[in-house]
């Protein structure tokens, strides 16, 4: 089972890294990260914060684009082009295929995020080397080449796994356009999900409050994955928080992948 999932994942990774869309997105992300150096020059005394902030934001946004644009086509494209017929008749179960697809994109995202992380650290290292005076000011809050940034990158990755699972879930039964719209929609809703928990404070109707609470548990809660501000400003982020939030992400992504497997296993390929 593991061998088959690994094989499917490896080929998703191979296909993805040869896709021009991916190269364009990664290139743009690297340009953004590099440009943060220039933007940093315009803001006296805030250079390091700006670079960290822009770097993390670029990694998150472009990671999101990769997860959505590759994720929504992951299954749909295979069904639409009928390439899935060549694979599903081989000795593997349909749910192994879905697991492999998810694992393949997760690997692609990991490699891309690692490249972006390296780029952010490289820009920070250049900054520390070129302008030591600015670095001294910044060090009051947090070191320039701050290992804490890795926690933010780790949670960005976990959030991307949730987004990938959402995209993959929609991809098993709807077109890429619709899947992309729904995934972006859920991503945005996910960042305001916490408001639903306190809906009962602003509405009178108990039914509306109950629906809001149900949605709060049902929809992904993505706000906890965003620890950019804390990390950039040198506020401590407990390892336990990162682990717990990561575990929530894995659980949510796992549940969605499970649903995707269920739908895909029962589907007729007309």
């Amino acid at each position, binding site marked *: 089972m593991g061998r088959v999932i690994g*094989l499917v994942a490896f*080929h998703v990774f*191979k296909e993805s890294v040869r896709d021009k869309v991916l190269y364009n997105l990664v290139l743009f992300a690297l340009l953004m990260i590099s440009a943060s150096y220039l933007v940093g020059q315009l803001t006296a005394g805030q250079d390091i914060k700006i670079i960290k902030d822009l770097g993390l934001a670029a990694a998150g946004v472009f990671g999101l684009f990769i997860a959505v644009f590759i994720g929504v086509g992951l299954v749909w494209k295979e069904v639409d082009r009928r*390439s899935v017929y060549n694979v*599903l*008749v081989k000795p593997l179960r349909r749910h192994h295929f879905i697991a492999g697809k998810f694992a393949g994109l997760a690997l692609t995202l990991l490699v891309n995020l690692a490249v972006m992380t390296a780029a952010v650290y490289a820009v920070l290292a250049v900054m520390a080397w070129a302008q030591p005076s600015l670095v001294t000011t910044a060090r009051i809050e947090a070191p320039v080449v701050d290992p804490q940034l890795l926690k933010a990158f780790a949670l960005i990755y976990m959030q991307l796994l949730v987004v990938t699972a959402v995209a993959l879930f929609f991809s098993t039964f709807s077109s890429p356009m619709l899947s992309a719209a729904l995934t972006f929609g859920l991503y945005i809703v996910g960042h305001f999900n916490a408001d639903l928990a306190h809906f009962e404070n602003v509405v009178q109707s108990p039914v509306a409050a109950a629906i809001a609470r149900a949605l709060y548990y049902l929809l992904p809660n993505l706000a906890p994955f965003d620890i950019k501000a804390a990390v950039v400003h040198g506020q401590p982020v407990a390892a336990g928080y990162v682990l717990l939030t990561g575990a929530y992400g894995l659980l949510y992504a796992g549940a969605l992948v499970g649903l995707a497997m269920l739908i895909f296993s029962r589907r007729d390929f*007309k």
Partner: protein
Amino acid sequence: MAAIDIDGLTKDYLVGFWRPRPYRALDGVTLRVEANEVFGFLGPNGAGKTTTLKLLMQLVYPTAGTIRILGKPPGDLGVRRRIGFLPEAPYFYDYLTAEEFLGYVAGLFGIREPERRTRVGSLLDRVGIGAERRLPMRRFSKGMLQRVGLAQALVNDPDVVFLDEPMSGLDPIGRRDVRALILELRDRGCTVFFSSHILSDAEALCSRAGILVAGRMVASGRIADMLAFQLAGWELVVSGVDAAALPLSDLHVRRVTPLADGRHALDLEPDADPERVIAECRSRGGRTVSLNPLRTTLEDFFVEQVAATQAAGQAGRFMPEG
């Protein structure tokens, strides 16, 4: 044990968005294919051939009926290890090379290096993919994709091969190669089930065939048996007699064609009595040169079956509601 055993296979699809209606793509198909047979699954476009193959491959699930391949249901992983499938107009991954894709497929069968590399190489040689094997498949022509499709269907050295329109998209040389490949598979002891609407291929390759029209099997059996009793008439060649002067309608002669050296070819109706015509010619001083029965071709038989089914009003495939 039959290689393929299909019993009462029925498939309904829901058609329409607002008021979906069941459309019967396949209606109670029953057939049996013995081991080491080349079976031609014939039918006009839209007859349900591809649906049957998808059901056999469990790409769609049946509404009713059962399928057994090598004695087991089609979803059985043990069965999947022993079968190969070429879908109609196959399509693969844009950014993978033929070599990589075949390596991937071989990996799914648990074939490990170095055997994987050897097998992939020899299969690509066998289907005529040369140096192109290292190019991304998005650059491949339809014919080349068809060849890769054949190679991936054979990567596990299968006992039963299902080919959906294997000649489609191929040039005459490609078609000849595929015909040779099917015969080679048969000689190796493999069972081949292929769908086609190119009847000359079926006539040349199949030991048995089934004809599917509007989702129903209208004929099945040995091609020789199907056509043996389908006598289309007789061709009698005589010499030394003025054939045009014979009582043609009385003798059930459809047409007289003059040939070289005073010979004539007489086209007799199927219910004519050739011996009576020969006796008539002899009585007028003529001599019989040859007498041959005219058999119905598979194409004639096929057209006849399709026309008969459509005339019987079986083409309407939407099911009554409620």
